Each structure stands twice: as structure tokens, then as C-alpha cells.
């Protein structure tokens, strides 16, 4: 275990053992055998000088920068940040010092110099409506920028639910015509890291895997790394035994809630959500939504925003509103005025995209 990174670490006061400990934790989170932690430590520590580090280009599209926030504010910046010392992050709008033409130059220079070899990270969905005019960078639509950058990429990381599945921009009625990366790019390996935002260590883990083994980790049918998305929140939930015993919280302040019973009946989407929150947790392992007493929203699943209400139990019929809205569309097309007070109100609120009220969310 020698090389520039281990020297950089030493200068930052990070010892070899601290780094090994970090890699052991990272490998365990990736469900890799214990030997992989050591392999990762050795590969990353031996990362070559700046000019030869793997180039990473990060393009932001229709997004909220929450994914970048999640990674840059991960709880041990000194160590998570190390992964970024082992790569050459050539374009990242939020983090880079350059702006305007300089930034564009950096992007194109990196794409040219590392053609066929760079890792492309995308966060945000791609709007197809109005020829992509909803989101442009440097006079180019996101669609154009993605196609151009994807051409020379070794692999693409679709970071966050928007890039992976369309996310919140794609939520009904999807005004911008938002789509995911994999809807557009068909000829490159794509790894989806969904979540709103994704767990930081999933991102650094994938990067570490790419640096160590020169390949992407094993993926499931939805293009997600199996190590982190192999099981549902429910399967790994510490409240799971209560589900098995039939002990449920019925409201957020009843005895069951105080006793930490299962939140299934309060709308927890844990049983259908594949993510690692239950084991990795958030904020440096402090807690995670279910531990804080709130059900899982299912933010790492496709179309989670339109899954029929955060507080509706999974056993309830999904999305009754949708049926009403469809009826309204048919009605409007036929020029028939809808006069049923409730139905009319609901569908009007829906088509005007008004704030959803509590009454809408209730069964």
C-alpha cells in the first residue's frame, strides 16, 4: 500500500489504519468479501499522479443539486473526500472554480483527452418537451449535451432518482417531458444510483469499485448495484420483527408508535423499496427515516412521487385519483361539463397541479 494518495492522506493527518478501516467499512457496505477492502485500500492508495487519474465528468440536468449536497456533506469529509483525490473531477458545475467559457473549455478538453475512458456522472432528468428548451447549458439542450458526452464515456453513472428514472421532474403531469438517462442512451453501460438523494457511500463505493477493479459493480435488473439495492428496506428493517408479530402503529402518536412498532399501516413503502438506508443509515450512521418514526417514502423507486400517497398503506388500492383524472380528460374531450361537485373539485385541482390537501391523501 504505497503511492501518492497515502502520502496525501498522511499530510491530512489520516493514518494508514484509518484508511484501511474506511475501506473495510466501504467494502462491507458493498457486500464484498473482506479481502476486497484491502484490495480497495491498495488500489486507491496507489492511484497515480494527477494527470493520469481516471477522468470523471459530472453533468447536471433537471435537478435540485440535492445529490451533490448529499455527497459533499457526507459525514466524514476527510475520508469520503479521499475518493475524489483518487480521480480527476474535470467538470462539476457546483464544485469547479471555472465558469462560463472556461468551464466549457475544461469539459471539452477532458472529453477529448480521455475519449473512451472517462466516467460520466449525470444527475437530473432530461426534458424532451419543446425540443429540450426547458433546460439548457451554454446554449445546448440537456439532450444534446448528454448525447455528446455519452459518446466518449467508458460508462455512465445515473446519479439520483431523476437521472435514473426521471424522478420528481417526471412526476405527473410531467410538464417538461422529463426522461431518464437510460431512456436516451442505449449503447453504454449505465449504472443507476437512485435515491432522493442517494446515500453518499453508494456513490463513493461505486467510484472505489471502478478505481479498484476498473469495472462497475454487479447490477440488478434495474441497473442498480446489487450490493446496495439487493434487498428491500423492509427486509433489513430493525422494525421487521414487529411486522412479523402483527404489531403496527396506527397513528403517529399512539402506543404502537411510541413503542417503535411497524409503520406499514401508516404508509411505509419499505416492503417495495430497494435501498440500503436500513443498514447504512444517514448522517454518519446517526439515524434514518424509519428510526425517526416516519415510514419510508420509497424515494429510490421509479415514479415514487405518483405512487398513491405517502401515508396510504401499500395494501390500499393505489392512486384512485388517477382514475378520476382520466375520467375528467375524457369528459373534457367530449365537451361534457362535469358537475359532480367532489369529482370536479378533485380533478380541477389535479389538472391545475394545485397543492394536494390532506383529504386527498386519506383513504
Amino acid at each position: 500500500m504505497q503511492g501518492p494518495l497515502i502520502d496525501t492522506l498522511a499530510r491530512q493527518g489520516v493514518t494508514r489504519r484509518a484508511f484501511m478501516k474506511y475501506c473495510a467499512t466501504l467494502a462491507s457496505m458493498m457486500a464484498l468479501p473482506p479481502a476486497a477492502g484491502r484490495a480497495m485500500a491498495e488500489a486507491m492508495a496507489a492511484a497515480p499522479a494527477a494527470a493520469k487519474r481516471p477522468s470523471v465528468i459530472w453533468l447536471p440536468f433537471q435537478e435540485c443539486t440535492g445529490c451533490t449536497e448529499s455527497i459533499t456533506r457526507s459525514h466524514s469529509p476527510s475520508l469520503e473526500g479521499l475518493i475524489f483525490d483518487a480521480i480527476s473531477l474535470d467538470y462539476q458545475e457546483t464544485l469547479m472554480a471555472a465558469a462560463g467559457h472556461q468551464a466549457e473549455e475544461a469539459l471539452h478538453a477532458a472529453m477529448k483527452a480521455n475519449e473512451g475512458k472517462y466516467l460520466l456522472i449525470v444527475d437530473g432528468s432530461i426534458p424532451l418537451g419543446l425540443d429540450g428548451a426547458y433546460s439548457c447549458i451554454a446554449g445546448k439542450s440537456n439532450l444534446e449535451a448528454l448525447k455528446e458526452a455519452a459518446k466518449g464515456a467508458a460508462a455512465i453513472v445515473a446519479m439520483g432518482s431523476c437521472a435514473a428514472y426521471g424522478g420528481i421532474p417526471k412526476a405527473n403531469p410531467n410538464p417538461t417531458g422529463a426522461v431518464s438517462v437510460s431512456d436516451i442512451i442505449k449503447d453504454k453501460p449505465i449504472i443507476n444510483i437512485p435515491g432522493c438523494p442517494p446515500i453518499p457511500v453508494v456513490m463513493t463505493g461505486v467510484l472505489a469499485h471502478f478505481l479498484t477493479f476498473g469495472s462497475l459493480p454487479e447490477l440488478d435488473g434495474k441497473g442498480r448495484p446489487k450490493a446496495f439495492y439487493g434487498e428491500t428496506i423492509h427486509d433489513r428493517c430493525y422494525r421487521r420483527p414487529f411486522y412479523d408479530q402483527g404489531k403496527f402503529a396506527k397513528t403517529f402518536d399512539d402506543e404502537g408508535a411510541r413503542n417503535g412498532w411497524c409503520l406499514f399501516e401508516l404508509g411505509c413503502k419499505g416492503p417495495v423499496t430497494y435501498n440500503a438506508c436500513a443498514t447504512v443509515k444517514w448522517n454518519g450512521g446517526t439515524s434514518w427515516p424509519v428510526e425517526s418514526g416516519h415510514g419510508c417514502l420509497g424515494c429510490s423507486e421509479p415514479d415514487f412521487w405518483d405512487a398513491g400517497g405517502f401515508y396510504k398503506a401499500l395494501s390500499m388500492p393505489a392512486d384512485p385519483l388517477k382514475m378520476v383524472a382520466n375520467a375528467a380528460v375524457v369528459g373534457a374531450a367530449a365537451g361534457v361539463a362535469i358537475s359532480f361537485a367532489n369529482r370536479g373539485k378533485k380533478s380541477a385541482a389535479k389538472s391545475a397541479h394545485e397543492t394536494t390537501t390532506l383529504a386527498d391523501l386519506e383513504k
Partner: protein
Amino acid sequence: MPLDAIPVVVVHSATNQIGDNAVLSGNAPVLLHEIAELTRKLLDSGESSAIDLRALPLTPADLDWLREALGQGQVAATLEAEGESTLSETICPGVWWVTHHNENGAVASEFIEVTFVPELLKAHPDDVRIGLEHLDLLISDLSNDSVST
């Protein structure tokens, strides 16, 4: 407003349950078989292995049960590196309980390692070399001192 003015009632897990073993999921005893198997492998081939406790559906009570069953052996080491890590041998020599904490004291990862000595405890030759340089420095200071006195 002080934090303790907020009326939060802490309900301890022991009082949550009807019956004594309700919070035990039954997953912990099974692990003993796996640990025994890994110990046999260590003896036969010298190959170390580890079980990731955080990747298994274990309740806090399960972990307590396992910790108690395996007991505390003679060796316990503490590593201070980006948070505390404890590596302690259980009453079964070669079976180590390893807990890594982060800077905030939260558990970052927890393993049972089946190995003669955990990798993390061994010094790396590069670090030993740095230590040797430091020793040489100390020794040369000694001779300088003796010259001056």
C-alpha cells in the same frame, strides 16, 4: 428553551415488550454455526474470514445475545483513527469482535473476524520504516547530547 423542556418520553426497549425474548428475532443463534465453520476453515487452511453484522437483520437484543454468548476473551485493543475502533477477542481464541465507530461515536461497521490476528492490528512495513527513522533520530540526539556534555 432547554432541550429537556420538550416533553419526550423515552421508552426503553425492555419495557416495550410483553415477555422477555420478544425482541429477539431468532437470527443470532444461527450465527454460532457459521462462526464455528469459519473457525474450522481458519484451522484447516489458515484463511481468515469475517461476518458483517450490520448486513444481517439483527435487533439490538440479538447483538447483545451474541455478544454475551461469545463472551470477552483476554485480548482487547483500541484503535483511535477517525473515531474509535475496538477489536476484542472473544472467549473463543481466533474469534474477534470488531466494532468501528465514526467520529461522532456512531457504529460505522461491525464484524466478527475469524483470524489469528486482525489485519488492522499489524504494523505496515512502510510505517515501521518511518518509526525506525524516528528511532535513529532519537539515537543521534543522544550522541549529540553526550558530545555536548
